[in-house]
């Protein structure tokens, strides 16, 4: 297990959002967390990425308590992209990606050939080499998201946590970003945990799905095991039909109506 949460209690102030949750992330897998709005999936991801300290229980990164490990050591192993990150105006793609090298730099040694190689490789892998000198705010949404992922790649971690990397993107750009994630996983053997809203894309691009509701894991396993008509009723309160995706063979959800609409 690369990452393991056991009995974590998570919340902000007095409000507990996740109360005693267990989850394990195996090396070399793409795990996608799904669930309705407010179910605690982003909160869980923040705890896995050490952005939120559990009020109870523990998160283990490679067997060690993540909250007892120095931030910088964690940042060399685990990269995390929050939802809809913002950059200062005028920041170029190359500058953004170069900032991914931050955990490897000290104040007296700011730039090395390792850094340069990592930045060049990250730009290359995300197909942004030609846009390196362009300001981020001139790019399309999909290109911008690829630039952020490129920054996380330059960080050189083999564990990546992505919080809704496809938010605000049109379908073509969503697929573009997820193809990049699949590429990272297949070619570079990275372990990825992400939160996604689109169930059909989640099913197509994940090895494992984790379905959450009200701070609890309701079901986890392969997309076929998790995405059933019964689970959609239980987790999303949605009456739906699940068929096989004619392209990928993964489960495809055809929504019918929310349960509340039925008298």
């Amino acid at each position, binding site marked *: 297990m690369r990452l393991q949460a056991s009995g974590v209690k998570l919340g902000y102030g007095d409000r507990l959002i996740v109360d005693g949750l267990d989850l394990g992330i195996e090396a070399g897998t793409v795990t996608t967390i799904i669930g309705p709005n407010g179910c605690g999936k982003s909160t869980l991801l923040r705890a896995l990425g050490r952005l939120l300290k559990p009020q109870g229980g523990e998160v283990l990164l490679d067997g060690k308590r993540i909250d007892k490990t120095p931030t910088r*050591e964690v940042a060399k192993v685990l990269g995390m992209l*929050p939802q809809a990150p913002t950059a200062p105006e005028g920041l*170029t793609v190359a500058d953004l990606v170069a900032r991914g090298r*931050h955990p490897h730099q000290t*104040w007296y040694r700011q730039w090395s050939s390792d850094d340069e190689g990592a930045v*060049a490789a990250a730009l290359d892998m995300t197909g942004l080499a030609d846009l*390196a*000198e362009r300001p981020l705010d001139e790019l399309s949404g999909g290109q911008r998201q690829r630039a952020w992922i490129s920054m996380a790649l330059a960080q050189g971690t083999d564990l990546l946590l992505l919080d809704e990397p496809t938010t605000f993107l049109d379908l073509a750009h969503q697929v573009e970003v997820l193809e990049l994630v699949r590429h990272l996983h297949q070619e570079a053997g990275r372990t990825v945990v992400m939160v996604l809203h689109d169930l059909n894309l989640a099913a197509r691009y994940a090895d494992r799905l984790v379905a959450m509701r009200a701070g609890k894991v309701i079901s986890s396993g392969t997309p076929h095991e998790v995405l059933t008509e019964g689970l959609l009723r239980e987790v999303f309160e949605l009456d739906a039909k699940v068929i096989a995706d004619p392209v990928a063979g993964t489960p495809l959800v055809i929504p019918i109506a929310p349960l509340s609409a039925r008298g």
Partner: protein
Amino acid sequence: MSATAVAPRLHGIRHRRLTVLVVLLGALAVTVVLSITIGSKSVPVSDAWHALTAPTGTENDLVIRSLRVPRTVLGVLAGLALGVSGALMQGHTRNPLADPGLLGVTQGAAFAMVASIILLGVDSLLVYIWFGLAGALVASVAVFALGMVGGRGGPTPVTLALAGTAVSAFLAALTSAVVLLDEQAMDVFRFWQAGSISARGADVVWQVLPFILAGLVLAMINAPGLNALSLGEDVARSLGQNIALTRTIGVAAVTLLSGAAVAACGSLAFVGLIVPHLARPLSGTDHRWLLPYSGLIGAALLLFADVIGRVVAPPGELEVGVVLALIGAPFFVFLVRRRKPVRL
């Protein structure tokens, strides 16, 4: 494009930045020469060189060595300090209209100086400056402490700005009350408030030098952390940056730099407001370059304004603070209208 083709471009960006740095150093050198040679008594460059390298006690030698050089060095130090602390302040608050005065240093220094005059009967410039420095430090620590109340993991830009405004308003009220009671305090305060680098002498330079040097070192240590922080606190933390430590170092640097500059030269915080806007188009958003560029532009601008003040109203002089406001304010309005200030 392959990875090997990207590398030369990255090199190109670094080369361009170094070139700009050299150009700015050259511009500063030119203003230094102007500041040493031009004034109510103009001195030819050859005489100035003579005064610096082999003084023989001529009148020009005296003017240069006892007046012009300390004035110029103080201008360079104050300009560096205000430019760098302005860029730090705008970076930390992510507010393009922030200036170093936001931490309460100006009002803190003003109040401590007038209080020292009226309560302790202090009447020497060197002693006022110590009080001004202490007042600036205490005010900024108070702002920082107030800014932390109720926040988790260090003050946020918003609580800092609120605390700074409140503390500044309180101290300004106290200062007004004190100077209304005491004529001597009023005179010192009026002169100090205009902002000037003249008639300070070499001992003032030595007095503020250690604080400004320490502040510059802290600022450069802070630059990479500030780069990470400008991507948002979550991204900064996932890049391994300690947020509270970065903010604390930043505030300490701003306090030392602007506190020393303001105590010695009066309220020139305006430099800290406009200079980062001049530097940013050249440096981009990387604070490792923005901070040195802002410092160099601040120093050149302050000296240039001071030289203008010496020649514009003979036989008298206009205070550098007044010149900066007169030429700086319209220029800043022009800048804002032509190119909207970037979102930080």
